[in-house]
């Protein structure tokens, strides 16, 4: 049993390495064809080490990459946190009341497809502050997946579970904590996982618009305006890895709270 597991792990490592080699090869070719306009992996690696030096530096005019990353994560955290605090109860209400669903759902459906970037100028007009505007943007775009998934979860509670509550006279509070929330939790976590993914994608664009400290601004200012394509690539890799870690984190939560029925 354990032996099979190790072979499996080994195989996945081999496949991952094969994937990396493939991408690296294509990348190398592109660099060759563009005459190093797009820097090759080796050059990018040198820039990467440069960027990684002193990551937590936090001087008024020199910030390390870690400081920038943390400030992006903080914005996502605040926007996503506030969004979830509103989205979960709203979703629970929508799922449990057909009337509330009928009132709120059309509005959600209209606002959901709006590009999160469209909310940025509105945030700027409201808060007159660009970091606050990017938090506002994250807040708005992290609402929808959680609202929709939570509402779906509540409306999918099986009649059997509801019957238990009715038959034994569960109070509203007991129904909420012992039936509704436990059943809906996996759905809520799915919503949160989708929301954090959207939020992480949007923050980069938001910071390009808002400036200040953050990964998005780093891509734009030091990468594009600074004429260093290598820095852009380094930033893309860092953004990708952090996004992956966030996703895995929520996936682990989802796994923890799913139960065999």
């Amino acid at each position, binding site marked *: 049993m354990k032996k099979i597991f190790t072979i499996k792990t080994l195989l996945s490592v081999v496949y991952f390495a094969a994937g990396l080699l493939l991408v690296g090869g294509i990348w190398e070719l592109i660099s060759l064809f563009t005459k190093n306009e797009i820097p090759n992996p080796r050059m990018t690696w040198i820039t990467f080490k440069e960027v990684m030096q002193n990551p937590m530096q936090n001087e008024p005019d020199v910030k390390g990459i870690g400081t920038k990353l943390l400030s992006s994560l903080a914005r996502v955290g605040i926007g996503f946190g506030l969004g979830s605090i509103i989205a979960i109860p709203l979703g629970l209400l929508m799922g449990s009341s057909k009337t509330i669903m009928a009132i709120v759902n059309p509005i959600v459906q209209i606002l959901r497809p709006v590009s999160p970037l469209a909310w940025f100028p509105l945030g700027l007009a409201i808060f007159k502050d660009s970091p606050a505007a990017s938090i506002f943007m994250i807040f708005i775009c992290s609402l929808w997946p959680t609202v929709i998934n939570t509402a779906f979860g509540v409306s999918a509670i099986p009649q*059997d*579970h509801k*019957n*238990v509550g*009715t*038959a*034994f*006279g*569960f*109070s509203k509070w*007991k129904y909420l904590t*012992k*039936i509704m929330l*436990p*059943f809906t939790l996996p759905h809520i976590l799915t919503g949160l996982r989708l929301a954090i993914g959207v939020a992480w994608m949007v923050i980069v664009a938001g910071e390009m618009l808002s400036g200040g400290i953050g990964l998005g601004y780093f891509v734009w200012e030091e990468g594009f305006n600074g004429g260093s394509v290598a820095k852009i690539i380094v930033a893309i890799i860092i953004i990708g890895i952090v996004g992956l870690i966030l996703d895995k984190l929520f996936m682990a939560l989802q796994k923890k709270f799913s*139960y*065999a*029925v």
Partner: protein
Amino acid sequence: MKTSSMAAESTVEVSNVTSENLLKPVYNAGKSIEIENVTVSFKTPKGIYTAVKDISLSVKKGEIICLIGHSGCGKSTLMGTISGMVKPSSGVVRANGNEVEKPGPDRGIVFQNYSLLPWLTVYQNIYEAVDSAIKHKTAAQKKELVINNLKMVKLYDHKDKLPGQLSGGMKQRVAIARAFAINPSILLLDEPFGALDALTKSSMHVELLKLWNLDNREKTIVMVTHDIEEAIFLSDRVVVMNNGPEATIKEIVDVPLPRPRNKKDIVHDEVYMTIHDKLMNLLIDKFSIDDIV
């Protein structure tokens, strides 16, 4: 001083309550459940569907009756009107003299598919039901009640397991323990053993009767089933229903077999065989391939 006056007050209250209650049994002496002209209709997209029509039935305290009939004949619906999960469109159902409006702790329900909450342990599943249905006990007393009932169905060693880790028979025992734990005077079982294999089912029958015996045969049990042998072994009366829609009672068959009944001996009893034949004739019209036209 203060405590004694409080005690006196509460005694007065208690005696008031009992004297009020004493008036009611005069009006329905010994009747546990009374169903009077009950009709249940549902609104469906195709129009109004009447499941059961104009049914009257009364059940004595401590009696075990089985509702038997083909699938979809409204047995579960009729049972639902006793539990309070289904509201009759017309007619009245009284349980222990009180008109049934919603489920209450005087009626314990065991559902067809166990209906245990999969995220709660065996212990928690029973505790949450006890905690909701019984208001006047302390947490320690409730805990004791849960533990006693778990021991009664021999599941104490499994109390920390989740329902997903139990077999079908064990799940059903949890559901039965949950229904018994709130100490209802009426126990309603909706095809409780339908999903169990024949051997497990057979031992569950005996276990159910044992629990009923331990309680001095005071609990009224109404059970929905489509199993003739099960119905005869358990009940005092078997209520045979017509096929729906607009199902009615076809016939009520008495089962005058003495208790305690022995599963092995009973099948050779002449009375048993007569009842069995009668129920077969009431329920089945095709007995061999020659009967298929």
